[in-house]
């Protein structure tokens, strides 16, 4: 059959729309994973045992099983118990929680690495433990772990391809729609890969800019 890249342009609109959905789900899951990661980290370090241990167990579960399986469970499993979430949100929650667990690990390390003197300086000024954490320790911890969190965001972009299996019409699924009409898998998957590559470059560029900006505040 050979390669014929001219089959792609007629479907450019569809592919681009898929790319937009990929960006949308990556961005929303990214935000969820970031704030979720902070929340989990705080709970894992400071919450009472009754909250801490369930959260740790939950995190362990997420870290030792594949994302794909988790997506299936959220999308197909929750329907079974009467919770019907649209595919996009199921994907967003699955990706978001999965990476929140990984981010939480990184952020915990970041929090523990903050110098004891920072806690003391806050407490000495009369700030409470909570205020000191919120205004002094956590902002610094998060800033310190921007590079590894950024790596997770890059991984998240690529793992967003998995939500195609629960029916979100992002890049992969969009190319599959084109393939079902043209029977040209190579060309369209290649086109999708090229889109990912470009989005990935943009994301890396943005993360690099952020890292440069926060260098001053270290």
């Amino acid at each position, binding site marked *: 059959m050979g390669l014929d890249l001219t089959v792609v342009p007629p479907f450019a609109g569809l592919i681009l729309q898929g790319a937009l959905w990929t960006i949308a789900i990556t961005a929303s899951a990214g935000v969820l994973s970031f704030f979720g990661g902070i929340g989990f980290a705080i709970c894992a370090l400071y919450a009472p045992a009754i909250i801490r241990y369930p959260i740790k167990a939950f995190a362990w579960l997420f870290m030792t099983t594949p994302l794909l399986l988790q997506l299936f469970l959220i999308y197909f499993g929750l329907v079974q118990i009467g919770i019907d979430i649209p595919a996009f949100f199921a994907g967003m929650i699955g990706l978001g929680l999965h990476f929140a667990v990984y981010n939480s690990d990184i952020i915990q390390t970041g929090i523990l690495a903050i110098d004891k003197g920072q806690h003391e*300086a806050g407490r*000495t000024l*009369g700030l409470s433990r909570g205020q000191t954490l919120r205004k002094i320790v956590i902002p*610094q911890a998060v800033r310190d772990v921007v590079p590894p969190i950024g790596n997770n965001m890059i991984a998240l972009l690529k793992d967003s391809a998995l939500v195609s299996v629960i029916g979100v019409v992002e890049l992969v699924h969009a190319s599959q729609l084109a393939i079902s009409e043209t029977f040209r898998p190579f060309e369209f998957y290649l086109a999708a890969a090229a889109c990912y590559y470009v989005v990935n470059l943009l994301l890396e560029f943005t993360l690099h800019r952020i890292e440069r900006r926060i260098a*001053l505040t*270290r």
Partner: protein
Amino acid sequence: MTDAKPFVEIRQARKCYGDLEVLKNISLKVNKGQIIAIIGPSGSGKSTLLRAINDLDPLTDGEVWLEDTQVNKKLPHKQYENHINKVRQNIGMVFQHFNLFPHLSVRENITLAPKMLKGISDAEADRLAEEQLEHVGLSDRIDYYPSQLSGGQKQRVAIARALAMQPKVMLFDEATSALDPELVEEVNLVMKRLAEEHMTMIIVTHEMAFAESVADRILFMDGGVVVEEGPPEQLFRAPKHERTKEFLAKHLRANALAPA
């Protein structure tokens, strides 16, 4: 100088880390506007005593008073937290390693606590920051980040940050010993200026000359006890105890050997 009622008082302070008794029954009275310098060898308990005053290192036994308030009052946890946060607003502390908040600008370092705890407006906070920075001679650095400052400048900002809470007493734990020699003087000058304004201060230091020039009273600590105390002339020129003499002799020799 002998006021009837002390401003800061420590009564029979004891502090143990496990079996190690770090403070052994120390009592201390400081009057309003008085300046106390604490000297002594490494590990003698100077920092521990200082940090007991704002309860950063809680005492095992004994009481700490600031005016009519007991700092280390026995209270249920929640109430105690409220109490100590209020008390600490009145006690400024300056650390050896500055402990500025690196993610905040100089302005924000100074205004963070006043804004959060005293609910002052942004405009008032800005005025406060400008005022305090002028005090320590750093008005032109207001929008810098700590990473852009020299050690001496960092420490002066740390002093400004503490002063912005309008504390009743200031604690200094070796404020200049992490600084390059040429930067020590600018910080000492700020502290001297505070002394002239009659700020009550308790200063832990390794700099005998500075202690002599600024303090009303010197405490020499060793092994968790106050071995000797008195006005600087007496303690430095005519120490009574053998351990004080030894310590001072060692220090003078070390200073004589140190490059100018």
